[in-house]
């Protein structure tokens, strides 16, 4: 299974000022734990984004990613850190929170673009979120990822990537993050 990301930065007029398409560096440990727990029915102790390890659900509320606007605890997330990705990452290095204050970005709804589509030997679906900068100053994004639920109340980082280049989002502009999850036969 392959994972790709696309990052698009636009200015306040909607003009694209930066675009990056790459194969994602990685799923991280929590993803495999959550899948293992689901497949086996044996809940794993998963380190959540707050650094506390908790036992995952093996029933409902497992691996939820979709999230309404205004929440930065689940779905696509962005940050300003650039520490190299490791398999043990349990959060972004320095997450950018939702808001309009200095260094913040407004988190729009995180959507799942479905149903999965088949093209040739591939089957794909996408996860998308837009982050709008109303902070009054540029905000630079250097890392992206996906937080997913491990149970009803808690979330873990399942994907993390460090961008190939800094992505400065001007005031009034926005950054769109799209992950493509693809199975290839």
């Amino acid at each position, binding site marked *: *299974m*392959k*994972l790709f990301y696309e990052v698009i930065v636009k200015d306040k007029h909607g003009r694209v000022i930066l675009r990056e398409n790459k194969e994602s*560096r*990685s*799923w*991280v*440990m929590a*993803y*495999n734990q959550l*899948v*293992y727990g*689901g*497949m*086996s*029915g*044996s809940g*794993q102790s998963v380190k959540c984004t707050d650094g506390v390890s908790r036992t995952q659900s*093996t*029933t*409902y*509320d*497992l*691996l*939820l*990613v*979709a999230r309404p606007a205004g929440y930065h605890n689940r779905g696509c997330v962005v940050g300003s850190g650039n520490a190299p*990705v*490791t*398999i*043990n*990452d349990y959060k972004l290095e320095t997450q950018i929170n939702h808001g309009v204050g200095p260094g913040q970005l407004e988190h729009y709804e995180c959507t*799942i673009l*479905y*149903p*999965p589509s*088949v093209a*040739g*030997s*591939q*089957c*794909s*679906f996408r*996860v998308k979120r837009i982050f709008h900068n109303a902070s009054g100053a540029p905000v630079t994004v250097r890392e992206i990822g996906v937080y*997913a*639920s491990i149970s009803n109340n808690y979330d873990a980082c399942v994907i993390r990537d460090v961008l190939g280049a800094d992505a400065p989002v001007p005031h009034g502009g926005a950054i769109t993050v799209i992950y493509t*999850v*693809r*199975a*290839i*036969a």
Partner: protein
Amino acid sequence: MSYASFLMQRDKSNAQTGLWLAVKVTDRNGKVISRQRQRKSHSFVQGWNWAVCAQFLGQSAPSPALGPVKNTAGSNVNLRTCGSPFRCNAGAGVTSTGIRVGTDNTLVAITDYALKAPIAQGTGPGQIEHQAQTFTWIGIAGNICSFQTERVLVNNSGAQITVHETGIYMTVFYPTAGTEICACRDLINQDIPDGGSVTVTYTIRIVA
């Protein structure tokens, strides 16, 4: 060296994200007569991505509908977030979920929704006994995180059975019974003597 350490060392030599497959055949005395060492699985098929998508979406009644996708019976179904997502911890004798084997050697396609000719549970002609599916959390070795799931299938049919295909069936729509999808499919080519067994081991691995 512990089994987990052995698996970790072997994992380091196969540093690619994805699904891996190993197959072992034993005779009636337990002697290994054939072994396909761990190799990259041909692939997850579309059912896997549908299942992941359903969990990511997390809705009990998606609108628009998340489907249709074919279940292992070939019927079109719509998915939703599942009460036992990805579940394939099949007990002995269970064939609705877990690792299955079959006799067809049609090439793998992304649209495969079942084995082409799955072998039924039993001891009759052309049948095989499915043991309980097991799971081993391997953990982290360097920048790799992996786990294994394995099933032993015993041939007490009275004659040799030739297995050509294998795959994993899993639940995607609990609590609605009978809604399972095929997560992956691979071609293998193994003769299982009467009294012997085939062990299929899948490894799911992510590499940072």
